[in-house]
């Protein structure tokens, strides 16, 4: 046998949060906070004691007055507890301009659009450097790379313009984003010299799992601040009164499945044998088991599958605001069918689920549910049995799905996690002539710099192209130190070039390799050099879905052969229509 290299087995805390473990004195201070002091440490196993969780999954961060701790709209996966000082959460909205971003709010005028014909730079990645030093408003940045810190220079003016809520020592914020993988709902700034402990999601998960009091506290905050609103966002619950929603919210349980940092092992998952991919996905509800509630997907994606032989046949996928189990509950409610899960639900990556008790669904949701929301009822057990008996082989080779797409294509989309895209670029290679009109159009609308590469994995003539998919779960947005990468008001994930400091965090996080780091040039064509390090300055670039162009994505409009589409993978009707055009 070939001799290998022996190393210590990688462990949970090899990479402590922030790169270093928390100091002993800080751990004691954190444990003294009311939210942590009430935790029963006896419930934690010897291998994972509470102080160790805090030491490795938490970090103490110090902020000066005016420092921006979190920005509204940012993606985060951590919760904060104030140790000393105070912070202000902005209750009304903060604008992009206030946060130092200089992305266009709307589309260009006809003249600005036409001007691109002659005003585009001839040199690649050329920038107007002067723009970086003007128009920042009150926002400043100090430090570099991941240590960069944004701050508001005129804090008093900023606070006077907004309605804010002050939070002091012992108070918690950021739990909604950490728990539900939602964008931060408010900008939070330090109003004096402040210390906070930031706890990443792994630590939050472990403490929630071990201590009921902590779980009730954090979930209570989430319930109070977000859950009812989240239910209301689902079409299924939109018709209910606030009182009913509050009752449902009170009895709904919140679950997290899979790893929030799924993007880190995504490439390993892709390399696996297709049949093994499904086995590695966490089971949320298993075919044949008892259904104890309606499952509402709050974030992430799930594979819906049926058992077939020794494997699983993917029949559908569900994402945010979709529900699972409604057909079974309807069949139980109206036909007295047993409450048995007919298909399996598995998490693809990280999934957050609200589990709503069946009784509440039957009492409040079903009686007034609009007809268009009713799911097709599953065949009754005896009918299924009768139908399957004469022709079990035909059943075994079924290749149709609930989505109107061939099953192997659904498997491909789910395995590749293309289903994350809200504007995935798909190319029908049976029609694409390789004329590159899409690339040229992209370059023309981005100062002569194409923002995607016309290649990518192909399945049965459908290519998932290397272009930003503007993900529903945009992990690239986690950890941007200046908030340069953000979701534009019109939907796409965009990078504000002026605010980007070229740290590369987003490019490293993107599981699909759709963000590129480029060395920028000045108007004279020469590289822009960092005066201290004497190295070229880099910026992150990617597709911005032509959010400021007239007419939308230039790539799609430029394709002469209808071979290219930008499609929201949740819009399965459009997707199925496009796939089945021939």
């Amino acid at each position, binding site marked *: 046998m070939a001799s290998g290299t022996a190393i210590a087995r990688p462990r949970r805390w090899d990479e402590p949060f922030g790169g270093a473990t928390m100091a002993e004195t800080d751990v004691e201070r954190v444990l003294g906070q009311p939210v942590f002091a009430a935790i029963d440490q006896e419930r934690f196993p010897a291998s994972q004691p509470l102080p160790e969780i805090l030491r490795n999954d938490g970090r103490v961060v110090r902020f000066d007055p005016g420092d921006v701790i979190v920005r509204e709209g940012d993606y985060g996966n951590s919760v904060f507890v104030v140790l000393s000082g105070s912070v202000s959460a902005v209750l009304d909205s903060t604008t992009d301009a206030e946060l130092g971003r200089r992305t266009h709010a709307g589309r260009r005028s*006809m003249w600005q*659009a*036409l001007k*691109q*014909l002659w005003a585009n730079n001839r040199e690649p990645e050329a920038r107007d450097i002067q723009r970086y030093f003007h128009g920042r408003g009150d926002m400043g940045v100090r430090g570099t790379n991941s240590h960069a810190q944004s701050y508001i220079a005129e804090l008093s003016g900023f606070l006077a313009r907004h309605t804010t809520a002050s939070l002091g020592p012992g108070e918690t914020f950021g739990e909604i984003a950490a728990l539900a993988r939602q964008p931060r709902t408010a900008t939070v700034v330090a109003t004096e010299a402040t210390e906070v402990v930031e706890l990443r999601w792994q630590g939050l998960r472990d403490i929630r799992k071990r201590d009921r009091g902590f779980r009730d506290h954090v979930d209570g905050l989430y319930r109070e601040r977000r859950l009812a609103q989240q239910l209301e966002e689902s079409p299924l619950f939109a018709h209910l009164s606030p009182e009913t929603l509050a009752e449902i919210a009170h009895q709904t349980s919140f679950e997290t499945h899979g790893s929030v940092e799924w993007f880190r092992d995504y490439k390993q998952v892709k390399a696996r044998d297709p049949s093994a991919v499904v086995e590695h996905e966490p089971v949320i509800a298993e075919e044949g088991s008892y259904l104890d509630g309606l499952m509402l997907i709050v974030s992430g994606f799930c594979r819906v599958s049926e058992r077939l032989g020794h494997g699983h046949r993917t029949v559908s996928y569900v994402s945010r605001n979709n529900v699972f189990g409604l057909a079974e509950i309807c069949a139980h409610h109206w036909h007295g069918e047993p409450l048995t899960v007919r298909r399996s639900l598995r998490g693809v990556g990280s999934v957050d689920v609200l589990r709503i008790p069946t009784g509440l669904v039957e009492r409040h949701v079903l009686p007034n549910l609009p007809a268009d929301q009713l799911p097709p009822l599953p065949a009754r057990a005896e009918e299924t049995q009768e139908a399957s008996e004469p022709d079990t082989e035909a059943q075994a080779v079924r290749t149709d799905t609930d989505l109107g797409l061939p099953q192997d294509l659904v498997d491909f989309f789910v395995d590749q996690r293309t289903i994350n895209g809200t504007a995935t670029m798909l190319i029908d*290679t*049976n*029609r*694409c*002539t*390789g*004329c590159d*009109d899409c690339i*040229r*159009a992209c370059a*023309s*609308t981005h100062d002569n710099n194409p923002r995607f590469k*016309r*290649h990518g994995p*192909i399945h049965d*003539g459908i*290519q998932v192209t290397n272009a930003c998919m503007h993900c529903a779960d945009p992990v690239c947005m986690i950890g941007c130190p200046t908030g340069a990468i953000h979701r534009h008001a019109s939907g796409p994930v965009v990078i504000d070039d002026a605010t980007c400091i070229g740290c590369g965090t987003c490019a490293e996080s993107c599981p699909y390799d759709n963000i590129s780091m480029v060395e920028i040039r000045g108007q004279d064509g020469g590289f822009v050099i960092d005066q201290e390090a004497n190295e070229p300055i880099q910026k992150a670039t990617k597709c911005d879905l032509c959010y400021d*162009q*007239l*007419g939308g994505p*230039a790539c*799609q*409009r*430029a*394709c*002469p*052969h*209808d*071979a290219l589409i930008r499609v929201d993978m949740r819009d399965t009707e459009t997707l199925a229509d496009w796939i*089945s*055009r*021939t």
Partner: protein
Amino acid sequence: MTFARRRLRNGAIALLVLAAAGAAVWAQYLALRDPAILTGWMLVAAFAVLASYNVRKKFPFLPLLSSAAWMQTHIYLGLLAAAVFLMHVGVELPNGVFESVLWVLTAALLLTGFVGLAITRLAPPALTHHGERLLFERIPVLRAQLAEEVHDLALRSVETEASTTLADYYHTRLHSFFARPRNLLAHLVASERPRSKLCRELRTLDRYLSEQGRETREAIEDRVLAKDNLDFQVTWQGLLKGWLFLHIPLTYATALVAIVHIGLVYAFQAALQ
């Protein structure tokens, strides 16, 4: 909308337009007027719209309808233009040199358009289903890479085999095969004969090779197949790009000669009056 339904819709519209054009020309006959003036201006209008598609491509940032919509217009208007062209010149060949040049240019322009349409519809599925779909610009790099690998395999086989069987075959047959794109005509007609022949020749060498030599031969054969796919891709992707080098220059040439033709027609008409 499915492509079949779109073809039906656009085809029906084109037939209606053609019928209207035919009626207008017939009315000219009935009025004892020369319909060539009307059909001539119809052709000018059609060519103006057809040529403006290339202008549309220069403005991807303006909301000027999708390129696919323009392409559909281009295709069906091209078909209509061919019909109007026949109405204009009739079934006889022109007798003057200048008119003959214009006739040849217009016919060639329409013909290259129809051939291009056929290529753009047939080549992409053929490329997709033949093997790995590659970027045209990357093909020379990949070919050089394969050539180097085969060169190394052949050289190494001299040491490991203590025989020059594979090296000799490489020198006489494979070196030129990997040097540049080959068998383009065979690929054009989807013939696999050159590839099969090469593979058969390679396998024939097995009786002269050791176990290790056979493994090397298999590795070389894999690269022959990969190179063959590159040649297929070069042939069809080259064709996809190449036909436009005929169609677009012909557009400019036809436009130029047509302008002179219109000038001459009106000049002679004025002289006759």
